[in-house]
């Protein structure tokens, strides 16, 4: 088995809406792979195909070497799926929820107790295990959900928007748990998110998906450096020899582009840290006073914009309206 997940021209349409449009990608064994995109981009539809909940309209998908259409049972045996919304039974205790999950996943009877203890320890809920889930906070529920997906040691773990709706601290905590389980159980993790920071923090590789199509797949690092540049902004005092200053700056090899807006100069450069001393040198030679200077790494936000032409957003009017419409039509049918 070469890849943990492999799709070939995978497509899914609802009526005339192509929710997933001809996507092909592969995820290596034991990799954390993230699908990054706005709501309605096709992330959840892809996950639903990979977890055997939806059948693709066209194309093929293999999970852990099994075809999701022709070998759904084998696929289900090798995956864990943690859904976007919490799916634990509120009136059952944490432990009862895990027991249910263990039985659903056919964990041998003699292993159930040990496995439950183990994951409870891992997500630090051992002392709350006999409380009804209704008393848990949002973060604790999410942890319990994730624990449920781990019990049977799946080869591939799907996390659909694992931190949506959680506050910043809780989100960071969940990231720690995800890193911890990845290390501990050595499994492939496929996650979707619309948070740049999350993808950046967790993923070995990211696929940016928008309007049902994959725009780019690469490591977060490569994506950022493919942007080439670091961004240097400086503000100088108004002086006559500004023109000369700019022309001398252009001669610095590492600087690729210069934007000038009155006293504010924006430079796109590689190796910004090496460029800054050179700027100071030129400035002091010309007797130009620099009021402020800053160096900024490009963020994944910048990357996203450069690939999709728009910022990541919660609702892209046109696309979503069409999608909602199709959904309502299905609901009424």
């Amino acid at each position, binding site marked *: 088995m070469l890849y943990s997940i492999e799709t070939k021209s995978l497509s899914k349409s609802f009526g005339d809406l192509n929710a997933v449009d001809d996507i092909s990608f592969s995820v290596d064994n034991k990799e954390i792979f993230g699908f990054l995109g706005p709501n309605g981009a096709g992330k959840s539809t892809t996950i639903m195909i990979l977890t*055997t*909940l939806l059948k693709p309209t066209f194309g093929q998908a293999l999970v852990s070497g099994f075809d999701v259409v022709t070998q759904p049972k084998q696929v289900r045996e090798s995956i864990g799926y943690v859904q976007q*919304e919490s799916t634990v*039974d509120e*009136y*059952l205790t944490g432990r*009862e929820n895990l027991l249910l999950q263990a039985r*659903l996943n*056919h964990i041998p009877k003699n292993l159930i107790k040990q496995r439950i203890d183990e994951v409870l320890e891992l997500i630090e809920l051992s002392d709350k295990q006999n409380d*009804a889930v209704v008393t848990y906070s949002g973060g604790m529920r999410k942890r319990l959900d994730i624990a449920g997906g781990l019990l049977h040691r799946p080869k591939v773990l799907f996390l659909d928007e694992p931190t949506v709706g959680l506050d910043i601290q809780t989100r960071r905590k969940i990231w720690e748990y995800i890193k911890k389980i990845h290390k501990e159980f050595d499994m492939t993790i496929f996650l979707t998110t619309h948070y740049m920071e999350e993808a950046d923090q967790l993923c070995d590789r990211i696929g940016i998906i928008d309007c049902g199509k994959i725009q780019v797949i690469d490591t977060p690092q490569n994506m950022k450096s493919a942007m080439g540049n670091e961004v240097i902004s400086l503000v100088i005092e108004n002086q006559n020899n500004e023109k000369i200053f700019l022309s001398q700056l252009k001669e610095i090899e590492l600087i690729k582009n210069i934007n000038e807006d009155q006293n504010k100069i924006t430079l796109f450069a590689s190796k910004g840290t090496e460029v800054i001393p050179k700027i100071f040198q030129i400035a002091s030679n010309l007797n130009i006073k620099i009021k402020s200077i800053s160096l900024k790494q490009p963020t994944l936000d910048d990357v996203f914009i450069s690939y999709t032409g728009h910022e990541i957003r919660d609702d892209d009017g046109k696309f979503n309206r069409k999608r909602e419409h199709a959904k309502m039509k299905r609901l009424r049918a």
Partner: protein
Amino acid sequence: MNSLFYDTYTIFWRELKRYKKSRSGVLIRLIQPAIWIIVIGNTFSGTQPLIQSVGFEGQYIEFMAPGVIILTAIFTSIFGGVNTLWDRRYGFMNKALTSPISRSSIALGKMSAISLIAALQASLILGIALAIGVTFPNPIMIAPIMAIVILFSLGFSGISVMIAATAKSQETFWGMINFLGMPLFMLSPALFPLELLPDWLASVAKLNPVTYTVLLVREMMTGVSEGGVPAVLSIAVISVFVLIMVGLASYVFTREVNKPF
């Protein structure tokens, strides 16, 4: 096969856990049948001559008590499938569907839990009936009566699960349930003997599995057989009804949950 039993039990266990934790629900579900037996049972006590005309010697309340037990079973079980809709809405269904258990074991687990819950509710109503003075000539009959109630409820839980799997919204579900539940109850000898119905209605009632269940349970409780329907025929009709409903419900459920919700 072995895993079908195990998986069915898993879902059954979960449904019962949820039932046990909703104590207020247990009481709320008792209110309606309790009102039936107390209010209607006493209001219609003057109709005793009508009952006697078909050969029933006891009080009206004794005549209708088995009917209310069946009423409880019908409504508890036909409402019971509604959590299928919640499960689909709140993700438990997807969790179960992406685990290795079979689709039909989800339906079977739900149905068996619903029918046991219906029988528990019915036994509470039986308790109320005994408390307000309904006599029971042969207390040993309580076990087979409960067995019949469980069996019968299994059929109705099948209807419920089937409708819940097909309906995409609560509104559709409750519409369908109300459309089915009341007529099935009224078109049976639960409150009045079939002999008092006009012929055409009586023929319709003869197609209703509720009719046979009421007749059978009443015969077991009071010892009076009516309408010329032998117990064996009633048992046969109920069994066939249950088999068809369970089979149909597993099939429809499996088909429906494979479609996107």
